[in-house]
Each structure stands twice: as structure tokens, then as C-alpha cells.
């Protein structure tokens, strides 16, 4: 320990620190300034950036003692006397904040940059921010915010709402944006619960091994160690899908992947817990590991299966197959067909906030604060594994630093700390390292598929067939759904009469895969869009025109009996073709340049719940009391996509009141009604509809009360502009006056609203997969430049359009679209999970390559509105589907540029060169043949 003096945010501190303690730890743990975030502990994400001795410093890799006697500025110091700094106002006003986890570092980096470069170009801004990763925004709105701040234009106050103006369709910052931009929004690891122990895990060093012995004796002797748990203490299996609950909290008897938790230590500090993990001696007996799809599809002979599951002697987890129409006839009817084999590496969500949680037990049973997308399923899993009634579990979601599907399963670390907290009688907290986040995975499945499409010479699709295998890793997760989605989500946006698929999901001895943005259909969509591009090229038809000919109409059924309601496919494609100058530019670009396009669609929430029951998919409560405030309680999980704000807008719109009168309490399973969670792009549609329903019920209560007190027909009354008035203005009440009438003799009024999907779909097995009350549609055009010498691909621009039904909050919708396209570009160009003998090689943000601001092209964002008949105010999904078209748009552009067809992701420069040289050889030989 050494004494250090720091002047932090203008205040002198003198304290003792460990000699090698990092500045971030001092700020967060000793001073309590948790606005400084820890995302990677490697200096690659930038979330920990603070200003120290006058310049931006990565506080998680800088020793605190370096700054003895220096001045430190953290995000908490920027706002003065409650007023946001001008740059913070820009971040809020421009929608540059989604999950908010990168925001503190981003703001401080930008502030220092603009102070030193008063008139930056956009390119300079991109360069300056390129050491701060953002996974939500695609950087576009961040760059706009910084540029606007640098230009000195004051951020205009949000326009005062005109009385009667609508709340829906108006861009507004997230209600919590101010909190996030000040660094005072509490994320799971920011929570400081008194007397908490810290948890660390010992993880398997073999992909598949019998655990012969675990010796805890040395570890238990370490001072500060309170409890060490091993697998047999938590024998109950769990998993997000009831049909594949195959995971225990820690390995029991054997380990199934490199990185699986074998033991867990609760200790006074994280470093003691880590030290104790090193003292645990585990005797393993490695057995044959299965690391590839092919290994796991085959009969395994005398070897041991990964799971004792399924009737065949292989590691197949799930086979899904559906066929519609007559594919053989379709092939015969086709004038030409194309069949290609595709291969995709796994990718990871890459949210900037690592998993973190705190658990404790008290008179209410178990309370769990955790970074989760689905409090409800975690609630159920914890009750099951802990062996307590559902009434003894409370899950609270704090602010969450991004999820993208990666925080939507119940996780071992959550179960384990619940157990450790019970055993020790103390709160227990955990934060995973970035490496552990990657090992936890649940990312997109590595996949292989052979897909065939036949068309007529007129460009009409006659048949589509897909044969798919996906690598699930060691456990089930969402895998059964993923298996179906790979196939069923090909039945739109094009009309198909003869369509079929078969998917195998296999277990392998690798970290498990699950749901990730665009769940299940990103890779197979890529295949289909590549085939269409190929076929259009071969019949010399414009690929946009061919798609236009094949689009499903609105208000129709697909071959697998999906009910398509609103459908903006045509408008989306038309928009991006016009905006990119497609018709004028295609075929006329300089050498090495190309344009490509592709389309996609996605579900707006699954019509069937994961756990089959008769509960509504979402319930929202509203309470109004003497103060006039409307309290919205909802189980929906805002993970940065803006769902809390969406709820406010829904309620404000129906009640005609100012959004400031509305307060949201969300995602606390003790206080809020069930919402199934933030997955499958369901929240705006389902929780939004429930909120709208609740608000309509409240409105009706108000009308009844006012009507009774004022002796006027309900139909004469209006709720507009925070007033309740009759058409003839004989009754004209302020909101609070109306509320007084409502609660007179009754007290606070509570109402409830719900959403239940209509009954949909066919009556065949598998008909439920991918059923949704509504579907989103979209299209992208990409422009690329390919370097003929190196094979390197640069995406120059992306034009995207997405039919979200109705943009409830256009700025938030744009943010979702831009983030989706950015994430898709990552999968296209640089992202992949690389394994060496089952060991993940690139388990950090240096080697797992999320595109930086410099790597992200200009993105042109278009919202298409089709007003869905069942969506709340016409709204449907916008958070996932947009990702689908962008990847094939890029690779189709490569084909347009240089004639190389990409069938493996991520795009590999070496493969591009190899194909280019083959094309050259063919050209030379055909020329010599001609000669």
C-alpha cells in the first residue's frame, strides 16, 4: 500500500492504494466514481478513458501511482450545477447514446480532441474516436454529435410540444440519456452492496475431459476465502428452452468445453478469489473431443458422446426439416438453377459491458441484480436450480451495456453467485473478464450449408432448397430455435411455391452458441441473396428487378403459412436503389469498384412463447395518483434499444399528456408484470401493444369519471395536450383536475394492459417456428472497392432502408438500423471466433475485430413506414432484421466489382486473390482457345 494524493474532479483525495493498482480501480472502488467503465482491461475498448494530467488516459491499464499529485477529470465532472456540458447535450440530442456504456469514454475522448482541434473534418473525428469502440450506434450519430459540437452550433432545446401534437413519430432522446451521459446510470458492476464478497471461477483447460478429482484444500487455506463451490452442489440442469435444458452451473463429472466453469470461489476480494482458483488442483482425464460439424455429424464409434442425448451414436442435437410444395417438380420447372456451398465462422455479440451480477438473500428470498435481457426466464431458472418457489426470486435489471442476444440466456455465473450468496450469507458479486465473456459466448453459430435455387428465364423463383448444419458448441441454448430459423426464415420476402430445408445442429466441445442479432437467419439469408445475385447475373437481369418480380405482396400467406400483413419490401428496395444511383451507376464504375444489393425480413417477436402457457406475452400496469404522474410498470428490458422511452411515448400518445408526466419502472420481477424479455425483436410490438392497451384502459377510466362528474357523454370528451375537454369546451380540465375526479373517493387508480398474439400458422409439426404477428422487411445497397494486388475489400458506402411499420421514435429507429448495419459489416469483413484445438484464440477486443469508427463507411439511413395493422400505432421490428441484407449486399458488390463470388465469411483477402487469379487463368485459356 502506498499513499497517493489525487485531485479528482476538483476535489483533493488522499488515500492508500495498492502499488500496482490501476487508476480505474481507484476511481471506481475507492472513490466511487463508477462512470469510468471497465470493458476490456486491455486498452482496446476505450470505455475507461479519463482525463489525467491534461490528456485522455486509459485508466484500466494505467497505474494510479503515476498520477500522484495530478488532476483527474472523470465523466462525472462535466455537467456543472446540473446542466449538461455542451458536448453532452450533443450526445443526448443527436441520439449518440444507446446502451451508454461506451459513452463516458467516448465523450471524454471527443472533448479532448475538439479542444485541441477546433475545426475538425469528419475524417479527423473518425480517426480521433477510433480507439473507443461502440457496438450500438455504428458511430454515425456519435460522429454527428462531435461534429456539431465542434461547429459550435448550440444544441436546440427539444421543441416545446404543441398542444395536441402527437408523441408518436417524433424523435426524442432516451429518457435516461442524461443519466448515461453523466456517468451516473448504474450498470450491474457499478452497484455497491455492502459487505459483498467477490467471485472468481476456475475454468476447464480441456475441451472434453473427465474430472477425476478436485482438491480444494490449499485454496481453502488462503486467508479471505469464504467458500468454494464445485459442480455437484448445483446438479439441477437449466437452459433457456424447456426442451434443451442441458447445462449445469459448473461441470459435473466431465467438462464439455475449454473454459467451462469447474469451481467457483467467493472471497473478500477478486484478487484473493483469483489466487485461490490457482491453488485448486483438478485431475482431468481428457477424452476424445469433437470440434467440427463433420466430427459431430458422424458416428462416433466407441467414443463418449458430448451429451447422453438422442438415439443415434453421434453428437447431433437437433434435426429440423420442413418441405412445402414439390421441390423436385420445381427443379424440373426451372430453366436454370444455382447451387452453392457456404461456410460461416461464428461471431460474438461484442457488447461493451461484460456480464456482471450481484446476488443476495434476505427475507424476500433471492435478489439478483444482473445484466440481462430476459429477467423472466432467469427468474424461472433461478427458482428451479435453487429449489425455491418462484415467489422467492427477484431479478432486477439495472442499466445494461448492450446485449444483442448475448445476455438472453440464464447464465452459470448468475446461478453460481446465487448459490455462493446462500452458502456464505453474504452478497456475492461477479464481473466476467472480457476473455470470460467470449468463453461464455452464445454467439452466432458457425454454419455450413448447401443451398440451391431454380428460376425461370423470366427470373421467377421456382424452387429453393437448403441443407444446413450448424455448430452449437457444448450446450443447447436457443439452438433448437436457431435450427428452425435457419430454414423457415427463408420463406419470405420472396414468393416460393416449392421450398424445403433440413438443418442439423450438432454439439461440439466448444463454447455454446445461441441467439445473436438477426437470430438464425443471417447466414442462410446470405446464401439466398448470393444465389439470386448469381442467377440474375446469368440471365442478365438487374438483380433489383429480379427481386421486385419475386416479392411477396402485403396481406398474403407464405408457403409455410406465415401471415404477412404490412410489407415494405418494394419501397425499401426502391429507396436504396434510387438513393445509391443504382441504375445510373451499375456497370459504369471504375475498375475494382462495385455495387451490390440484397434484401431481408425478420419477425416482430415470436408469436409463441418459449415456455408454453396461457399468459399474455406482455403485461403493462399503469398507476395514476394525486400527483398526476402516470407510473408505467413493465417487465420489458431496456438494454440500450430504447424500450423504456418507447413505453413513455405509447402512453403519452394515448392519454394526450406530456411525456414528463410519465415515469417508467421496468424489469424488476418483484415489482413489474411479466414481459418475456428483449429477444426476437418483440418489445415494441408486444410490450408496446400492452402499454397502449393499458393506456386505453386508463383513458376509459378517466372518461368515465369525468363523464360522471360533469354529466357529459364520454364521446364528447377529448384527451389532448395534457387536458381533458369536451368538444364544446363546456368541460375543460387540466390533466391534474381530471385525475382528481378519477381518484375521488377511490384513491390511486391502477389499470392493466396486455398483449396476446393472435392464433397463427399451420397445423404441421414445426409450423410454430418463426411465426410472428408481423414481419419487418428491408434492403441494402453497398459500394465496395477491391484492391487487385492485395485482395483487400473496402466498403465505401452503405444505403439501407427498413420497413419498421411506423417509427415510434425515429431517432431510436435510425440508431437500431445503423447499429445493425455496422454489426453486419463486422461479420462480413473482420469478425470471427477463431479456435485452435477447441481453444478460442481471439478472446479479446484486440484480436476479435469489431470495426472502429475508421472502418465504418458512410451509412445512409432510410426508414420505411407501412403502418402495420396490428403493431402499436403501426410499429414493428427494427432492431435485428436490418442486419440481414447488408452482408450479402457487400459480397454481391464484390462480385460486381471483380467477378469473385464470396461463399465464406468473413471475407478473406487471400480467397479473393485466389479466385481472381483463377478468373485470370480462365480468361487467358479461353482467349487462347479463341485464338
Amino acid at each position: 500500500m502506498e499513499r497517493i494524493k489525487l485531485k479528482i474532479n476538483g476535489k483533493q483525495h488522499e488515500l492508500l492504494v495498492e502499488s500496482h493498482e490501476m487508476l480505474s480501480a481507484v476511481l471506481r472502488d475507492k472513490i466511487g466514481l463508477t462512470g469510468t467503465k471497465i470493458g476490456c482491461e486491455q486498452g482496446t475498448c476505450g470505455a475507461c478513458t479519463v482525463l489525467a494530467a491534461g490528456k485522455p488516459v486509459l485508466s484500466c491499464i494505467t497505474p494510479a501511482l503515476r498520477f500522484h499529485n495530478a488532476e483527474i477529470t472523470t465523466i462525472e465532472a462535466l455537467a456543472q450545477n446540473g446542466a449538461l456540458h455542451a458536448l453532452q447535450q450533443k450526445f443526448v440530442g443527436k441520439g449518440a447514446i444507446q446502451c451508454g456504456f461506451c459513452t463516458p469514454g467516448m465523450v471524454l475522448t471527443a472533448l479532448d480532441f475538439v479542444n485541441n482541434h477546433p475545426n475538425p473534418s469528419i475524417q479527423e473525428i473518425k480517426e480521433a474516436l477510433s480507439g473507443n469502440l461502440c457496438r450500438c450506434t455504428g458511430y454515425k450519430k456519435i460522429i454527428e454529435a462531435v461534429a456539431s459540437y465542434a461547429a459550435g452550433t448550440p444544441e436546440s432545446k427539444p421543441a416545446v410540444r404543441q398542444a395536441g401534437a402527437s408523441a408518436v413519430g417524433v424523435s426524442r432522446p432516451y429518457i435516461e440519456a442524461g443519466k448515461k451521459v453523466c456517468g451516473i446510470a448504474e450498470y450491474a458492476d457499478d452497484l455497491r452492496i455492502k459487505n459483498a464478497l467477490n467471485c472468481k471461477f476456475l475454468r476447464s483447460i480441456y475441451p472434453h475431459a473427465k474430472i477425476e478429482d478436485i482438491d480444494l484444500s490449499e485454496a481453502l487455506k488462503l486467508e479471505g476465502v469464504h467458500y468454494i463451490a464445485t459442480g455437484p452442489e448445483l446438479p439441477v440442469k437449466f437452459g433457456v428452452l424447456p426442451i434443451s435444458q442441458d447445462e449445469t452451473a459448473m461441470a459435473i463429472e466431465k467438462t464439455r468445453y475449454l473454459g467451462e466453469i469447474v469451481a467457483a470461489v467467493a472471497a473478500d476480494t477478486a484478487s484473493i478469489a483469483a489466487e485461490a482458483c490457482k491453488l485448486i488442483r483438478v485431475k482431468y482425464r481428457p477424452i476424445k473431443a469433437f470440434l467440427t460439424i463433420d466430427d459431430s455429424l458422424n458416428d462416433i464409434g466407441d467414443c463418449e458422446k458430448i451429451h447422453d442425448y438422442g438415439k443415434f451414436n453421434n453428437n447431433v442435437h437437433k434435426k429440423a426439416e420442413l418441405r412445402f410444395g414439390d421441390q423436385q417438380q420445381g427443379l424440373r420447372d426451372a430453366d436454370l438453377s444455382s447451387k452453392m456451398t457456404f461456410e460461416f465462422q461464428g461471431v460474438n455479440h461484442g457488447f461493451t459491458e461484460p456480464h456482471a451480477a450481484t446476488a443476495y438473500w434476505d427475507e424476500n428470498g433471492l435478489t439478483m441484480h444482473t445484466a440481462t435481457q430476459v429477467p423472466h426466464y432467469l427468474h424461472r431458472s433461478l427458482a428451479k436450480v435453487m429449489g425455491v418457489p418462484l415467489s422467492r426470486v427477484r431479478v432486477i435489471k439495472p442499466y445494461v451495456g448492450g446485449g444483442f442476444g448475448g445476455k438472453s440466456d440464464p447464465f452459470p455465473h448468475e446461478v453460481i453467485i446465487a448459490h455462493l450468496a446462500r452458502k456464505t450469507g453474504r452478497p456475492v458479486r461477479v464481473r466476467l473478464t472480457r476473455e470470460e465473456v467470449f468463453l461464455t459466448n452464445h454467439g452466432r453459430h458457425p454454419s455450413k450449408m448447401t443451398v440451391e435455387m431454380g428460376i425461370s428465364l423470366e427470373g421467377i423463383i421456382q424452387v429453393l432448397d437448403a441443407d444446413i448444419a450448424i455448430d452449437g458448441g457444448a450446450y443447447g441454448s436457443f439452438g433448437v430455435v436457431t435450427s428452425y430459423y435457419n430454414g423457415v426464415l427463408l420463406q419470405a420476402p420472396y414468393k416460393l411455391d416449392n421450398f424445403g430445408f433440413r438443418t442439423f445442429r450438432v454439439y461440439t466441445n466448444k463454447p455454446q452458441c445461441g441467439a445473436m442479432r438477426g437470430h438464425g437467419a443471417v447466414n442462410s439469408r446470405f446464401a439466398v441473396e448470393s444465389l439470386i445475385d448469381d442467377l440474375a447475373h446469368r440471365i442478365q437481369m438487374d438483380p433489383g428487378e429480379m427481386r421486385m418480380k419475386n416479392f411477396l405482396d402485403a396481406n398474403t400467406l407464405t408457403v409455410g403459412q406465415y401471415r404477412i400483413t404490412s410489407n415494405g419490401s418494394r419501397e425499401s428496395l426502391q429507396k436504396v436503389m434510387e438513393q445509391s444511383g443504382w441504375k445510373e451507376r451499375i456497370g459504369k464504375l471504375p475498375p475494382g469498384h462495385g455495387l451490390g444489393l440484397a434484401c431481408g425480413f425478420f419477425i416482430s417477436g415470436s408469436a409463441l412463447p418459449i415456455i408454453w402457457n396461457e399468459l399474455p406475452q406482455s403485461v403493462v400496469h399503469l398507476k395514476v395518483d394525486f400527483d398526476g404522474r402516470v407510473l408505467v410498470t413493465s417487465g420489458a428490458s431496456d438494454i440500450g434499444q430504447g424500450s423504456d422511452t418507447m413505453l413513455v411515448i405509447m402512453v403519452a400518445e394515448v392519454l394526450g399528456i406530456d411525456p414528463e408526466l410519465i415515469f417508467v419502472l421496468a424489469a424488476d420481477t418483484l415489482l413489474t408484470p411479466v414481459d418475456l424479455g428483449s429477444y426476437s425483436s418483440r418489445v415494441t410490438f408486444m410490450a408496446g401493444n400492452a402499454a397502449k392497451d393499458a393506456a386505453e384502459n386508463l383513458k376509459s377510466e378517466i372518461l368515465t369519471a369525468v363523464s360522471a362528474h360533469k354529466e357529459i357523454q364520454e364521446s364528447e370528451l377529448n384527451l389532448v395536450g395534457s387536458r381533458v375537454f369536451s368538444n364544446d369546451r363546456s368541460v375543460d380540465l387540466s390533466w391534474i383536475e381530471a385525475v382528481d375526479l378519477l381518484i375521488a373517493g377511490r384513491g390511486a387508480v391502477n389499470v392493466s394492459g396486455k398483449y396476446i398474439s393472435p392464433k397463427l400458422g399451420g397445423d404441421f409439426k414445426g409450423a410454430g417456428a418463426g411465426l410472428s404477428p408481423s414481419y419487418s422487411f428491408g434492403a441494402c445497397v453497398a459500394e465496395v472497392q477491391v484492391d487487385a494486388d492485395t485482395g483487400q475489400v473496402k466498403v465505401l458506402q452503405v444505403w439501407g432502408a427498413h420497413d419498421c411499420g411506423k417509427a415510434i421514435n425515429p431517432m431510436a429507429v435510425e440508431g437500431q438500423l445503423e447499429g445493425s448495419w455496422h454489426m453486419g459489416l463486422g461479420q462480413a469483413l473482420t469478425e470471427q471466433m477463431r479456435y485452435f484445438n477447441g481453444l478460442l484464440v481471439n478472446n479479446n477486443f484486440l484480436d476479435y475485430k469489431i470495426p472502429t469508427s475508421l472502418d465504418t463507411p458512410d451509412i445512409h439511413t432510410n426508414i420505411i413506414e407501412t403502418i402495420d395493422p396490428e403493431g402499436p400505432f403501426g410499429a414493428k421490428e427494427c432492431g435485428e432484421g436490418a442486419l440481414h441484407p447488408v452482408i450479402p449486399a457487400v459480397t454481391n458488390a464484390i462480385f460486381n466489382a471483380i467477378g469473385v463470388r464470396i461463399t465464406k465469411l468473413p471475407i478473406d483477402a487471400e480467397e479473393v486473390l485466389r479466385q481472381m487469379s483463377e478468373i485470370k487463368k480462365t480468361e487467358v485459356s479461353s482467349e487462347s482457345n479463341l485464338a
Partner: protein
Amino acid sequence: MNIEKTYFRPQSIGEAVQLAAGHENDFRYLAGGTDVIVNKFQETETSSCLIDLTGIGEMRQVQTLDHCLSIGALVCLDELKNYPVLAVEFPVLLEAAQAVASPVIRKTATIGGNVLCENRCSFFNQTEWWREAVGYCLKCKGDICIATGGTENCFSKFASDTAIALISLDATISVLEKDAAYVVPLEEIYTGDGIQPRKFNKTTLIKSIEIPLDRGFRSVFKKLRQRETLEFSSLTTVVTTDRQGKIKIVLGGVDPKPVVITGKVGDDPKELIRKAVKKSRIVNNDVYSRQYRKDMITVYLNNSFEALAR
């Protein structure tokens, strides 16, 4: 059981050297520390004593001496652009510095630290848990090179971009050791052994870097990487010519040490390039394959010679 950790931040070179002598067996000098601290987290660096050099003002100066520019080893990579002489005389050094890591890291990382940056490998720059799982490699006291399966040589990649530029400019470094001070051409400090990539012992300090002035250098810099920032090099090439007609090719990222080929104007560039490729001991320890990086040497150098001819 735990050895007590210590941290010092000396204000002069003399003080630093003295502290180092007192902790000879278990210390590490820290310049910016942006790599060393990460290595500490990953436990490839376990010294209990850190001697932070960033308080030493005399190592932070840039000055023009007789026929050379002297850059203090602790000048931050980001600060180099504040010296107009660099943009005029050695733009390639600015380009190389700008290609290192990310903007925010460059505000802490120093040129001396970058020149001494530890060699890297996919199988070495990992956590202790990971290295145990893969089976420790030669560079962390194991028996086998994971990348090649060999048992003799470690081929961890030379990772400094600025060193590649500096060597092409015939830079020398002023070195302080316990009992000696001397000047040595930068390219001579590297051993080619991936495990011990430098001839220095732990107490060796680089005080400053000197680059000759008035040589009429012209250079082309290229770096192979997947992203435009936040990347260690998969291949860095610099070709520099001077007024006398000297050609110097320097490669990084493809061998445990910088690959240096010299020639003179009039030499067949193809022959020089062939020599450079041949001298590079590339193995599969990078996101790009061995073959691709090898092919790119030729492509990059061809393009560099073309650019110089313009």
C-alpha cells in the same frame, strides 16, 4: 506468500538506474506501459517492482544536434507530430507512429517503449489460463512452439512499427547500462530469437533515438492489418532511399527481428525484394496466413518501389 509489490516513479535517469540496480532480479521499466500492463494482466509479465520512467523530463525532449535529430525515448507517439522537423525530414516516422495502436493509446505510449515492444504471437499473448490450456510455448518456458510444432526456435513476431521506420532511416540509439553508456545502430540490438528478441538485459535503458539529418531520405511505409486502427502489424514494410542512392528495405511482423535488406539505386528491385522475402521467417502465428503475408511482402515492396520511382 505474495511477494510485496512496489512501484517507483524516479525523476532522473540516475535515480532510475539506481532503483533498477536495487531490484535487479524482479523489476520492469515502464514507459507508457500500454503493453506491459496488459502483459501483467495476462501474466506474461510478473515483475513485482515497476519503475515508471514517465517522470523523467530529460528523456522527453526532441532536439536538433549536429547532423542528427535526437528524440527522447519517452516522447509519446502522439506528440511526435508537434515537431515540424519530423514532418519535413522524416514523414515516414510520423506515418509509422500514427499506425501504432489507437489514438488514445498513442497519447500514453512512447517511442522508446514502441521500439522495445515485446515480440508477439497468437499463442503467447494470452492469459495464464489460456497458455496453460494450450500447453505453454517456448516463449513461456514450455517445450514446443505451438505455431510450428518445432522445439528449437520461437518465431514470435517483431511488432514495433516505429522501429521499422527508424531502422530504414539508419537511426541509432543512446543506451545506458549499469556501467556503460554507448550509441548503437538500432537494427543491431535485435537478436532474431523470439524468446529473447533484444541483446539488452533488463537494466538497459534507451535514453534517446538519433536520426541522421540532411540525408535526403524518401520513404514509403505500408502496414498490413485488418482494421485501420487498433492493430499490431501483420506485415510492416518501409523502403527508404537517400540522396547517395542507398536503398534500405525493412520489414516488420514477419520475423522475430526486423528484416533488413540494403542496396543501391540501380540494383534490380526484384532481386532486392526476392532477398527480403527469403530472409523473412514467417510462421502461422497471425490472423493472416503465412503464405498471404509472404505474398504481400512482394506486393507491398513492388508498390513501394513504384511510388518511389514517381
